[in-house]
Structures are given as C-alpha cells and as structure tokens.
C-alpha cells in the first residue's frame, strides 16, 4: 500500500512554470489566496480580462489540443494547473470552460477561430449552462424545456435554471427533451445557442448561493440546426461525461481558516481552541476532511487501475455534502455569531470567508437523495420507481 500522492519531477517543474506565470499576470489582490470569491475582489471586468489571458495561454481548457484552443496537457499536469488556480480562487474559470467544451463534443470544434468552442476556449466569450446536479435530474417527464421539430429547425419551449458567472454570456448550453415519456438516454438533445434569439427572456433568481443563477424562458424559440451539439438525442451522454465527473481534489480552505481562527482567537487570554468542547468539534471537522481525502484517493486509485466504481463516487459526493454542512454547523458553534459576518463587514474574520462557507454548504443545490439512490441502486437495493419506457439497452 502507498497512501502518498507523489508529484513527478515534470509536474513539479510545471507547477513552478504555472506559479511564475500567475505571479506575472495576476492582480495583486489574488496573489495570496484569502478565500474570498474572486468576483468580490476584482469585479467582473478584470475577471474577464484574466479569463482571456488564461484562454490565450490554453489554460481554460488545458486538456484540449492546442489547435482547439487548449494546451494539450496530460491529466496529471492539468491537475497541477487546477490546484494552482483553485488556490487563488480561480478554479471555476477553467471548470466552467472545460466543462462546456467537453459537453460540446469534438465534432463541433473544427479549430476555426470563429467557432463557439474556440471562442470559449480562448476566453473571449462565456457560457451559461443548464443546472444539473446529477443524472437523476434528467427525468424527461419533468424537464422544463421541450423540443418540437419544424423542418430542419428545432423550436424550444419552456423554462429552466442556468448557471454561469459571466454577466453577459455569449452562449447558452441547454438540454431540451424530445419525448417526455421516453427513456432518459434517448430523450435529450443538447444545444449551444446565442442568448439573444427571439423568444428568450432571462430572469435573475435570488438564491442563497453567492453565485448567480438565472431562470430562462423559451417561448417558441427557433433554433437553427448548427446550434445542435453533436448528434440529436446525445444530450444525456454529453451531460454524463462533461458535468458529472467527480470533484477534483482541492485544498479545504474553510477548515484551515477555522483552525487558524480558533488558534489565534482568545477569550480571557485563552485560545478558544483550547476549550474542550470547541476542540472536540474542531477535531471532528478535521476527521471529516480526512475521510473525504481518503474517499477521493480511493476513487482516483480505482480509476487509475481501471476498477469499476459502483457506489463509490456517489458515496464521496454524499459524504462531502454532509461534511460541508457539518463544518458549517461547527463553524457557528466554534466562532459564534462572527461566523455570519460577510466580507462587507470590517469585523468579519478572514474577510468573510466563513459566511461564504455557510451559504455554499447549504446552497450546494444537489439533493442528497439522488446520491443516496445511486448508492442504493449500486448495492442492489432497487427502489420503487414510476414506470417508464424500457431502456433501449434492455
């Protein structure tokens, strides 16, 4: 057995290159990671400029080949890049772009500078996408956007929730359903459409999440054939491969910050971390993080050996979600009401990062039930389900 993740010399060298580049190109505010959302620190204008710089370097879609706007990195170096970006609060930039590009399939990208994929890979435009937390969300009977055909065009009707941080995206990546009674694997098509088509209206949604989501209504929106991503009825597979990949292993900044806060904050001259009840809570959070790390490591190891993950990825997600909520609770118990102050308040510890964690933990948006169901299915505990059409594979 070997529980160490060892970086190769090549990875270490690449890490130095990334750090050097980031030191040159990043605004001063982002040089030391405070945990505060980037958008709160530098605003969207500077963020968009940064996205372009990263895109020009090929780091928005690092695993894509260079001719398609990426840098052709192998997964190990792509992970190093993600770790460095994420440590500076920028991981989402590459996650957003790479996810959409992967969900477009290679056939849509001809290396043409004007193609949507190249524009996204280069960071010249942003893209919002349908919010999907798990494959369970893809219930054809319950999906809000439907397709009808009109000659070669498709007509989209209905509404859905979209996520993305660019306030003026160049594209919307959306799923729409052909056959509400059909099997999910054959019921969906994916589209990449400009948001200014006739019949599209966008409404911001106020949610707990600090990141903006939007409700978009489609009223008889005529979508030309070139907006179809890959082939018709490939939406389920594109979603599965692009947006439901397991979370990347990243540093758990909120817990580090909490431990630091507890060590350095004193009440009547004594560190609050020395108080037995708080100490137990802090160690519980530390243990929870340790378990997440081990589960992620296990999953990565299984993937590397070609072993089939059955319940594992869903277990890791479920466990992470529960741990995040528990950390949120422990943070409030350890810090008291200070845990609720955000970055706008001068008395907020760690620039309000604890308040952010409180919101993120609750606003994750994923239903724990869907991960539990995946685990139960993998264990052979078949659930009661409403009848639906047979799987084409059956």
């Amino acid at each position: 057995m070997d529980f160490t993740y060892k970086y190769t010399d090549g990875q270490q060298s690449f890490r130095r290159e990334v750090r050097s580049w980031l030191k040159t190109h990043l605004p001063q505010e982002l040089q030391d990671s405070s945990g505060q959302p980037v958008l709160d620190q530098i605003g969207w204008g500077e963020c968009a400029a940064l996205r372009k710089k990263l895109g020009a370097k090929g780091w928005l879609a690092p695993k894509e080949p260079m001719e398609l706007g990426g840098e052709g990195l192998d997964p190990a170096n792509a992970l190093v890049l993600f770790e460095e970006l994420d440590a500076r609060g920028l991981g989402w930039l590459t996650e957003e772009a790479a996810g959409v590009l992967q969900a477009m399939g290679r056939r849509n990208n001809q290396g043409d500078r004007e193609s949507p994929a190249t524009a996204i890979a280069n960071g010249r435009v942003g893209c919002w996408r349908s919010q999907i937390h798990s494959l369970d969300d893809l219930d054809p009977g319950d999906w809000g956007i439907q397709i009808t055909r009109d000659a070669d065009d498709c007509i989209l009707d209905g509404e859905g929730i979209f996520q993305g941080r660019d306030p003026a995206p160049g594209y919307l990546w959306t799923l729409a359903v052909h056959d509400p009674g059909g099997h999910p694997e054959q019921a969906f098509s994916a589209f990449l459409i400009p948001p200014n088509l006739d019949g599209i209206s966008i409404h911001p949604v106020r949610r707990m999440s600090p990141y903006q989501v939007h409700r978009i209504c489609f009223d008889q929106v005529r979508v030309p054939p070139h907006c179809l991503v890959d082939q018709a009825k490939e939406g389920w597979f594109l979603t599965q491969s692009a947006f439901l990949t397991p979370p990347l292993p990243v540093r758990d900044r909120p817990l580090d910050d909490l431990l630091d806060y507890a060590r350095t904050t004193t009440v009547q001259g004594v560190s609050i971390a020395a108080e037995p009840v708080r100490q137990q809570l802090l160690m519980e959070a530390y243990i929870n993080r340790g378990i997440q790390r081990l589960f992620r490591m296990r999953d990565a190891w299984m993937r590397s050996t070609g072993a089939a993950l059955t319940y594992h990825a869903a277990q890791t997600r479920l466990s992470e979600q529960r741990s995040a909520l528990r950390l949120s609770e422990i943070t409030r118990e350890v810090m008291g009401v200070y845990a609720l102050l955000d970055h706008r308040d001068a008395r907020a510890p760690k620039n309000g990062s604890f308040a952010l964690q409180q919101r993120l933990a609750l606003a994750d948006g994923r239903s724990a039930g869907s991960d539990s169901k995946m685990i139960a299915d993998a264990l052979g505990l078949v659930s009661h389900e409403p009848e639906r059409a047979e799987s084409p594979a059956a």
Partner: protein
Amino acid sequence: MDLALNEVQTMLQNSAREFMVAEMPKSRVLEIDDSPSGFAVDLWEKMCGIGWSGMAVPEEYGGSGNSFTDLGVIYEMMGYYACSSPHLSSAVLCSQVILEAGSQEQKQSLLPAIASGQQIFSLALTEPEYGWGADTVHLQATRHNGSFTLEGDKLFIPDANVADRLLVVARTADGPDPEHGLSIFIVDKDAPGVSVRVQTGWIGPKVCEVNFANVAVSETNVLGPVDSAWPAIAKSLDRGTALLCAYMAGGTQKVFEMARDYSQTRIAFGVPIGTFQRVQDHVIDTLNEADAAKWSAYEALWKLDQDDPGASVSISMAKAVVSTGFPKACEASHHVHGGIGTDLEFGLTQYTKRARTLQHYLGDAIYHKARMAKLLAV
C-alpha cells in the same frame, strides 16, 4: 499512490479468511462469548500454530517480523468474524512493550514464548479512573530493600484471566509531569497477592479487575528503566490501536453486509424492505461507516510501517472514526433487522457487543480527538 494489498498481504487475507470460515462460525462465536473465560484454548493454539502470534515479533526473537499492515489484514478478518483471542493483548501490546522497553536479556527470555504462543501476556494499564493517558495511572509501586511492592487495582484489563503473566504499569515516582515516574513490572498472574476477577456486563471480549495486595516484585522483573516507561508504552499503544482499528473496520464491514443482505431478502408489504428509502438510508450509513473505518485504519497502519511522523495523528483519527462508526453502524443495522437482530443466535448482537466494548478500549473518540488536537497543536 497504490491502495492495493501486496502479494503477501493478499495471501494472508485469503488464508485468514479460510481459517475464520472453518473456525469461527457464528455458533462458535456465541459459545466462546458465553463461556466463563471467553477464551478457546484450541482456537488460540491453532492461531499460534499458523504463526499469527509471532507476526509482530522480529525474527531474532522467534517471530516472523511482519509489517503492521500485514497484521492489519489478519485483524480485519478477525474483526469480520468476531474472533475472540488474547492476540492483541499478548502478541501485540505486550510484545511491543517488551520490544520497546526491555533489555536485550529480557527480550530474549520473554519474546520467543509470546511469539510461539507458549505464554500469554496481558497489559495491565487502566484503573478505576479509566483512561489511556499517563495521568490516569495511580497504582503505586514502592521500592524497599531491592524490590518493589505493588498495591492497588487495575480495571477493565482484557485477557488477564487467561494470561500467564501481566505487564503492570505502576507509578514509581510522583511529579508535575504524569508521563514521568511510570515503570513496568512483570508479574506472574498466580503470584501471591494477585487476584483476578472477570467483570460482568454486556461486554464483548472479557475484561477483568486485577487487585494487587502487597505484591512483591524483584528488580529483575522491572521491564526497562525505572520511572521512564511511558514512551515505550505510548509507542506500543499506538501500534495496538492501529490494529484494533483494523479489527473494528472488519466488524463494521460485516454489519454493513448483514444489513444489506437482510434488506434484500426480508419481504414486507410484498416487497424487499431494501426498496424502502428509510431502510436504504440505514444501509448506506453502515456502508459509509465501514468504508471510513477501513481506509482510515489502513492509512494509519501504512504510516506506522513507514515510520511517518504523522502516524500518531492518523492512528488517533482512525480510532476516533471506528469508535464512533462501529457502534453507529451496529445501531443502523439493528434498525434494518428489527426484532431478528436482537436474537442472540442470529449473529448481529455479537458485533454490537464488541462495538460497544471496543469503542472504549485503547481510548474512545473523545480521548483520541483531544490527543489529535494536542499533536496538531490546535
């Protein structure tokens, strides 16, 4: 990163499984648990016969010098089959205390007997003020004319009733640092003034009260240096704790499998109960506890083998995980099983009993979380 067992460990796992399937059907577990001593001499002889009692002992002292991960594989299997034996007391804790504290002469005279299983040792550490730190040891050893006299009580001592000899931790000096002033004494269980009583209760592996009434111990039976035994004890406790975690992880895995299997076959309202979401949640909880227990235990064992400076933190983390997780998994499994789970012959209660006993043994979650905080300087 490679989380696979190596060839030797895979072989050990297979042979341990075969051994347990043959020797530890659930009726046998119940029989041993119900016996007054909680000890099956024939089982112990077979375990020693296949070399398990010498695995933690270096070859020069008659053992096979296996890694702790090797031994962890066996412990996981012992836990899975709820096997009771004095292995942890004698072949791990006491062998390691002797290895760490003993003189060369003491190692040569004591370890071969432990490695062969010819003698059983038990570590007498805990007292009425139950705890696993040096500060809870109060039993006094008074020096007088070249020998020591032990006076006081030890409580919750596993396997003292079946041991040939006891390693008694006693206080030989007082001072502000509780880790200073502790010494280890080798005491024959049948020595004058020693009395052993098996404690009663809903307890898995048997534990004993051991009373020392004016027990004389010669200086030659002091293990290692006087007054400074704690570092050796602490190291041995770490090793034993990591292995206990593997045992408890095996038990947790078993109660998960019992819950899963039962939920697939028990029919209620015309369908297997595993189709009910609430039941599924219980099964998933047991699975989560089992996986957390397994991987935290193996990481701790691996770090122990690597002599990693973070090993003690990982060991305490693993023990906190299993001390919480094994009992919780048992409770969830009882929820799945309902009435049948409380039937002693069904097999689940043997695990529940062990979970609740071992939760405390070598330190509970509260103790280990406090220890982690100290080690991490939180």
